[in-house]
């Protein structure tokens, strides 16, 4: 009977092309608006590391203290750590894995000295960075704690930089020249673009996409006096900072610190440790305010950083309201269409169609309208996203693409919506007074 219902639905849709087109457009516009906003919303709010997001925690310490005259939110804590706190927490080594990091920008010379050096952005960090964030490798791997401790001149390249420097060949063991010194390549990463780049939001390449092209040991970068290429904030008590050593001993914040805590128990223990550490700084006279710390997992960290602008959440909600309005319109049109067919439905009932058979026939028609609506909606959504990509910042625009999963969601949403819109009309159609419809009385 499926083929029969399909054929009947096709005939019915062809019978009144204008009405059919209006229904498809109504559903298509709703799907297009909601899918466009959903894609943008998800690009901005997706979990960048779903398998571990609840085990990775960003560390914050109130190293600013009260800031008279500066309007700060009551729950404000500096987004990064100063060098003293970062180093102390790294040395304490109270989590199975912990990494400090800061963004740097350096000149890297290709092995072929004929070519000009390229300027590249990257991060100075620890070897635990790679296993901690599940970074996949094309060749080789990360450096180890020995290289961290010995401040070794080693580097991990992204695939893109490796393509640029070595033409995509396995470069593990070869050397590149960074700011005049030779660095041994330990590994080449596969393409890895956590979205958003939660591990150091706002560093270098923007809020939504990481443009890191290399990673090298934190201690090595400190030795080289490479300043941060990212955010650098100071409390009012910082005063004038003199020289590199002045920066390392200043209360200015520029280092992100993450810890991996696999269980709720270990997270609670680390939180207590962190509080004790801050309190010890107060007791030692470094802080003269009550200890305030925060340990936020990935999703909490993204929320705290307002990665999803509130306006975007509102707009996404509005787009779904548009979908509902469109569906109500489609339901009205479907009601008109189905009620105009009362005679035909009554006849089929008289000839032996059961009520479920009538439901099936009408639902098939509604589903076909939904599929057509999905196709229109996906087209409109793609058009909307193309427009968005033209007006949005590049780092964000690159994320706003429909994926296969989105198309499937649009299809299911449209079919489900069309079926939902058709339920009342179908119910009404199946409950008419057949005798009156057939005999004209």
């Amino acid at each position, binding site marked *: *009977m499926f083929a*029969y219902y399909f054929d009947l639905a096709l*005939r*019915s849709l*062809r*019978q009144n092309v204008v009405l059919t087109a209006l229904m498809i457009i109504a559903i298509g516009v709703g799907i297009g608006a909601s899918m466009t906003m959903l894609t943008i919303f998800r690009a901005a709010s997706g979990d960048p590391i779903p398998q571990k997001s609840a085990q990775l925690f960003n560390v914050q310490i109130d190293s600013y203290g009260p800031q008279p005259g500066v309007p700060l939110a009551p729950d404000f804590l500096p987004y990064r750590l100063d060098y003293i706190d970062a180093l102390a927490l790294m040395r304490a080594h109270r989590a199975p894995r912990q990494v400090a990091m800061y963004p740097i920008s350096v000149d890297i010379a290709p092995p072929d000295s004929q070519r000009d050096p390229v300027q590249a952005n990257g991060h100075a960090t620890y070897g635990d960075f790679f296993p901690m964030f599940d970074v996949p490798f094309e060749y080789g791997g990360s450096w180890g704690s020995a290289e961290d401790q010995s401040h070794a001149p080693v580097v991990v390249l992204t695939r893109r930089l490796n393509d640029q420097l070595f033409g995509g060949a396995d470069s593990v063991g070869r050397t590149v020249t960074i700011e005049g010194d030779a660095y041994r390549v330990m590994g080449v990463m596969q393409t890895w673009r956590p979205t958003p780049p939660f591990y150091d939001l706002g560093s270098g390449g923007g809020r939504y996409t990481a443009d890191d092209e290399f990673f090298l040991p934190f201690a090595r970068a400190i030795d080289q006096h490479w300043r941060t290429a990212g955010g650098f904030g100071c409390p009012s008590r910082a005063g004038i900072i003199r020289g590199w050593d002045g920066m390392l001993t200043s209360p200015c914040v520029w280092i992100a610190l993450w810890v991996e805590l696999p269980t709720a128990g270990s997270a609670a223990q680390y939180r207590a440790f962190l509080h004790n550490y801050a309190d010890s700084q107060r007791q030692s006279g470094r802080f003269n305010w009550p200890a305030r710390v925060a340990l936020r997992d990935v999703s909490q960290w993204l929320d705290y950083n307002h990665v999803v602008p509130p306006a975007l959440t509102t707009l996404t909600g509005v787009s779904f309201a548009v979908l509902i309005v469109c569906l109500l319109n489609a339901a009205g049109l479907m009601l008109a269409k189905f009620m105009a067919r009362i*005679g*035909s439905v009554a*006849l*089929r*009932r*008289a*000839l*032996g*169609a*059961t*009520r*479920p*058979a009538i439901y099936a026939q009408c639902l098939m028609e509604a589903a076909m309208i939904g599929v057509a609506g999905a196709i229109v909606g996906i087209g409109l959504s793609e058009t909307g996203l193309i427009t968005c990509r033209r007006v949005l910042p590049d780092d964000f625009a690159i994320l706003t693409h429909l994926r296969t999963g989105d198309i499937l969601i649009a299809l299911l949403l449209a079919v489900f919506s069309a079926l939902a819109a058709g339920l009342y009309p179908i119910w009404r159609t199946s409950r008419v*007074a*057949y*005798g009156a419809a*057939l*005999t*004209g*009385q």
Partner: protein
Amino acid sequence: MLRMNHLSKIYRTEVVETYALRDFNIHVREGEFVAVTGPSGSGKTTFLTIAGLLEEFSGGEYWLDGVDTRGLNDNQRSRLRNQKIGFVFQSFNLIPDLNVFDNIDVPLRYRGMKGAERKRLINGVLERVGLTSRARHYPAEMSGGQQQRVAIARALVGSPRLLLADEPTGNLDTQMARGVMELLEELHRGGATIVMVTHDPDLAARAQRQVHIIDGTILDLSATAHGETVPAAAQGAQGAPARL
């Protein structure tokens, strides 16, 4: 074949109850051709829709081919309707976007028959009503008389036990009406059980038996020009489907 005992049908609103049928008794035997007449609003159509299991009744009994229809659910009524009843309507009620073949196919589809079997039955019934050459034509391409023949073919294709006809010649000119009526008479001679609602006294007179409905109750006029004897063919084929 069709027996209604003390049947009633009441339409209720918040303020008033209206009896469409009241203490309604009728017995149509196997192979009979009964004409049901009566003025407008007398309850003819209500009788026909209840007889066709398109509406439920309020009280009494209705037995169709030995089946007590009280308490049947909607699906059971649909299946019984599909298997035992054929309808012929005044306005033909053909589906305009289906051709003749597909229109006749509708009741067989709901019976779940295989394609080859459906095709055999449809071709057979088209031959009986003389429309084999019109199988691929659409209703709009045919005269009223031809459309009513298609409707009769559709009513007959599933070999129903009872043919219910509602003013089958009401929308036809005299010549076409004669042709349709002759077809019904031919079916009756073949043993079909037919109940025909009509306003036309001349047509009613051609039936084997006339019953008259007034204010929802029945007046059996019995003796007609054709007598009230059940045709021999039908007597010898108790329980067999209506056929030419």
